[in-house]
């Protein structure tokens, strides 16, 4: 049976007997979810690359209110230093741990193949050349788009029940045993099939919710805390994060977590059936194979 997906949603999601080996298509993602997903994706890429451009102007992080290399020890730093015999090496230092990062961080090749001292390689920043002013323009424009898009997604998802129905895990699902079990399934690359594939698994729910409800708002809040104007309007912003430089540090590491999330997300999409997953985020239709054991 081919299910065109034009049936009412609740009918499709209801448990009804299926024949073994049968393929059905369900309507998985509402239009607003799909549109905001892709706008969000573009925003995150531009914000990351323009953010790296901005960070390149002073690639050091501090804890507390104030921080500059003359006055305070950075908690994190990217740079290039001259070793013996004049050899230059790129490095990244977190606390007292330092690693050589030549080629990527601190020292990398430009488009002509020459090594240049730069916190991030040209392919990772927007614009590719060093340009703080233009980096900021890109960043602020897409920050507004990102925030508006997030607001649209959040209000639509509350209104259409996406949160309650698809994202908020049940108490049973967040028990350690359930999460552990799900983690083992992920590591074995055992993805839900049949009826189970209709819903997000517990780790998916917890991860998506953490990104949507914690990491993304945290990016906005720490971004605003770096603004002297916003700090005058809302002094409590600075108190929440323990200082402007702390907020900047949190902004950077939260961005790293988002990059990690997107990478794992992409790997999961590829491993679990990229065409089916991609289609479901473009047309909304997701294909499910009903297996023998479900009958």
């Amino acid at each position, binding site marked *: 049976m081919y299910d065109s997906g034009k049936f009412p949603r609740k009918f499709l999601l209801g448990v009804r007997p299926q024949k073994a080996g049968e393929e059905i298509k369900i309507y998985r993602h509402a239009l607003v979810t799909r549109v905001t997903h892709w706008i969000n994706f573009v925003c995150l890429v*531009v914000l990351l690359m323009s953010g790296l451009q901005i960070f390149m102007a002073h690639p050091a992080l501090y804890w507390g209110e*104030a921080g500059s290399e003359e006055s305070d020890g950075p908690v994190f730093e990217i740079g290039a230093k001259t070793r013996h015999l004049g050899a230059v090496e790129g490095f990244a230092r977190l606390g007292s741990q330092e690693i050589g990062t030549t080629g990527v961080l601190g020292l990398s090749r430009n488009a002509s193949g020459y090594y240049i001292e730069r916190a991030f390689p040209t392919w990772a920043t927007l614009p590719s050349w060093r340009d*703080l002013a233009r980096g900021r323009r890109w960043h602020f424009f897409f920050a507004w788009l990102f925030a508006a898009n997030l607001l649209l997604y959040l209000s639509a998802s509350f209104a259409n029940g996406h949160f309650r129905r698809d994202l908020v895990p049940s108490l049973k699902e967040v028990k350690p045993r359930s999460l552990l079990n799900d983690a083992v399934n992920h590591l074995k690359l055992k993805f839900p099939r049949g009826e189970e594939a209709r819903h997000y698994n517990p780790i998916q729910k917890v991860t998506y919710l953490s990104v949507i409800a914690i990491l993304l708002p945290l990016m906005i809040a720490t971004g605003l805390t770096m603004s002297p104007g*916003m700090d005058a309007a809302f002094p409590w912003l600075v108190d929440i994060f323990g200082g402007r430089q702390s907020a900047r540090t949190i902004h950077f590491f939260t961005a790293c977590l988002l990059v990690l999330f997107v990478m794992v997300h992409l790997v999961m999409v590829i491993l679990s059936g990229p065409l089916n997953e991609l289609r479901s985020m473009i047309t909304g239709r997701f294909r499910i194979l009903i297996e023998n054991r479900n009958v």
Partner: protein
Amino acid sequence: MSRLLLPRRQLLKLSMASLGGSLLGGCDQLSKSPDFQSLLGLAEALNYGAQRGLEGDRALAREYTAADLSAVFKVNGSQMPEGEEYARLLANNFIDWRLRIDGLVGNPLALSLADLEALPQRTQITRHDCVEGWSAIGKWQGVPLSVVLERAGLLPKARFIVFHCADMFEHAADGTGQYYESIDLIDAFHPQTLLALRLNDMPLDVGHGAPLRLRVERQLGYKHAKYVMRIEAVDKLDHIGRGKGGFWPDRGYEWYAGI
């Protein structure tokens, strides 16, 4: 099949690389396009509107205690204005220096350091946030700009206050390399907007803008013009420098630097 596989893999690799390359190249093209840049520049108007709306005219930047002072207040931008005139003023400890206040004022002034020190003073310990990302906390003492402007008597037409500086920051071919900055009247009359004469209880040193620098505490560091020689009240900014209201705004940075 195996003969097909390798080219296919290469093709995939090549197409991924060229897709990535053209996307990056496309973004760089957009970065160079004036039209796209003015589109992105719309965010500045949103930033300005949002911040002015949320801050109101009078919200104060946080003031800190002596315990919070940075061990070293980083020197950035101009470290020493070039030219004979500044060198002469410096050699004579700025005894001959006069701050001119003119433009759209009823009563143009020329104030010496002693004149400024005789005016009401304000002291504030505030955080200086550089557009590059670092911050430093310093104790500033000086004359609130409002005090000087009230004595000069702004004419009703005046809308901006321009700060002309001693430092030639860039030898630009079009002759617009002289540092300058401007603020609107909301910031000009904000209680924390100072003509600062002292940093951490010492007269300003050359690196920090001797003999006088501006403090506009709700904006980023580049607005805090150093080596101020002349204050001009104007009704518009387009005839100064490249017309964007400041050395860095002329070079693509936001005129209103609240973020």
